[in-house]
């Protein structure tokens, strides 16, 4: 990898966070290129989710730097980070259960994000068309008026992915997108993810190795808050350090 490449979408450097002395992420650095699909793997407690939390501002870093297209994210609020073009999907599906699928998508539509913008937001043709288009993509076109509370687990995951898509982020972060899905749903999701990771950079946390091999451009293995190994799937799989962590004890 060319570390001097000025075109990195995301540059994470020396990122550290400590919870009462416990360093969940410890001096981590990695770089994401445009259109790259980066998969993070690692044993439980390796700090994978924490890394995503740090990037999107949910957890405040103790030190280090996260630069997205030249902007320092660590000093920005969550919503500013999102508006800058970073989308995040959580591990457990989080959609607005009291609202309909249509409204869920509408709230993510990238317009009228200020107080008065949303107060005077109009649901015009553009909005409706875009929502219809996304709904088609996420297999929910027929359920637009259904309350999100009535969706199945898999459908909620798709809805959340749809909410991300409508934002059209440049960097998409997905935390275990196929966890808890049935085999059929998993297949459909993989198909969906393959479609949406085109034309943008993606960071995925995933355990399902088959799935990882399918989508990953590059893999980062985290262990105890640090990078254990990084590179193509092939290389990582054969890295003795990785083998030791996963199998050695």
């Amino acid at each position, binding site marked *: 990898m060319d570390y001097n490449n000025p075109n990195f979408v995301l540059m994470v450097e020396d990122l550290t966070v400590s919870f009462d002395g416990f360093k969940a992420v410890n001096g981590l650095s990695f770089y994401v290129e445009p259109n790259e699909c980066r998969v993070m793997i690692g044993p439980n407690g390796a700090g994978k989710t924490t890394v995503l939390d740090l990037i*999107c501002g*949910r957890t405040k870093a103790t030190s280090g730097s996260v630069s997205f297209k030249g902007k320092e994210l660590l000093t920005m*609020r*969550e*919503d*500013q980070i*999102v*508006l800058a073009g970073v*989308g*995040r999907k*959580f591990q457990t599906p*989080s*959609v*607005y*259960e*009291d*609202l*309909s699928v*249509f*409204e869920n998508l*509408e*709230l*993510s539509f*990238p317009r*009228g*994000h*200020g*107080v008065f913008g*949303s*107060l*005077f*937001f109009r*649901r015009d043709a553009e909005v*409706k068309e875009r929502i219809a288009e996304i709904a088609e993509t996420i297999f929910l*076109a*027929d*359920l*637009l*008026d*259904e*309350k999100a509370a009535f969706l199945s687990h898999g459908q909620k995951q798709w809805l959340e992915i749809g*909410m991300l898509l409508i*934002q059209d982020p440049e960097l998409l972060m997905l935390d275990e997108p196929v966890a808890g899905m049935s085999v059929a749903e998993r297949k459909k999701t993989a198909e969906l993810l393959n479609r949406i990771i085109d034309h943008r950079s993606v960071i995925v946390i995933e355990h399902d190795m088959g799935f990882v091999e399918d989508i990953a451009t590059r893999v980062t293995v985290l262990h105890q808050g640090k990078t254990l190994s990084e590179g193509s799937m092939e290389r990582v799989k054969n890295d003795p350090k990785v083998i030791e962590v996963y199998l050695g004890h």
Partner: protein
Amino acid sequence: MQTDRKNRFLTREEAVYFAILAAVVFLILPLALDPFRLNLFGKYLTYAFVAIGLVLCWGAGGILSLGQGVFFGLGGYCMAMFLKLEASTPENTAIQSTPGIPDFMDWNQITALPWWWEPFHSLFFSLLAVVVVPVVFAFIVGVAMFRRRVGGVYFAIITQAIAAILTILIIGQQGFTGGVNGITDLRTLNGWDIRTDEAKTALYFVNGALLFACLFAAQYVRRSKLGRLLIAMRDQEDRVRFSGYDVASFKIFVFCLGAAFAGIGGAMFTLQVGFMSPTLVGIVPSIEMVIFAAVGGRLSILGAVYGTLLVNWAKTTFSESFPELWLLGLGALFIAVVMTFPNGLAGLWSEQIMPRARKLFAGGTARPAPASPDTAAGLTQPRKAAAE
């Protein structure tokens, strides 16, 4: 597929409900009640302003403020200051050592009007202040709290403490505020005697009109994307944040809006009752106002109005007949509402009464109404059957 997804200001059902309330406020009550009782209901309706604000903040936004009395009081005091200055002409106050200042200042050896009272000689300024002062105060509190992500229980307790602080302050600074007595003996508004029955009736209608203005404003907010965001925030605050919204600014907005409503209510209270006192600022009235909203239904703005009317009417009636039992009744009512009907009267209506009524009228063919917590004033859009 194309369902009707119009985002109308009022659905047909809601329009009917608004019309019913309008009929109650503008026709039934004025025709059925003598001026004295009408004035009482006018007073109750001033609390409804606060209850509407609470529905927005608490029901929709999940922000429970136990200090709404502060804003009610600020609005009321702004109005009272104007009226007091008008009542304190040098002729009226000739027996004072310093004529021309409010009587309570004179009793406290204050010999000149404090500078911050001066602008309240102007009616325009005072009317502006009725809204602006509570809003500014709410803004400061809101920025301090919501930017720091203080929420839920903590917010409730801190607002309660603020109510306590303000009460002690008003009582302690009696030379400037009238102390525990409040600002009393208010007489005229720009020369118009507000104490006559005719004036009180007129004020009742003004009050009603303002209430509807606030109701419509609240309805607009709920219908807007901002309204849906509030619900979204109440349930999934983090998700909203990661959809690119600055959650704090929305909370601040709705808190300020609630404060503005409360301020208007307070000013109308002063006009209709003829005085303002710190007992309306403190913890107890603030919590009572939450009771009104809870009984009416914390999700329904119209329910809040009915709840306010009902609880106050019951309070007056009960305390006339069985003063000892009143507190027991109020306490029991409150527990019952929280335990069994968390959505209050409005919930009872839309969950219990309406579905049954529909069934009755439509025979067995009617589709059971969705268990939406509120159709009475549509927190969520009434769901249409999904096409196909």
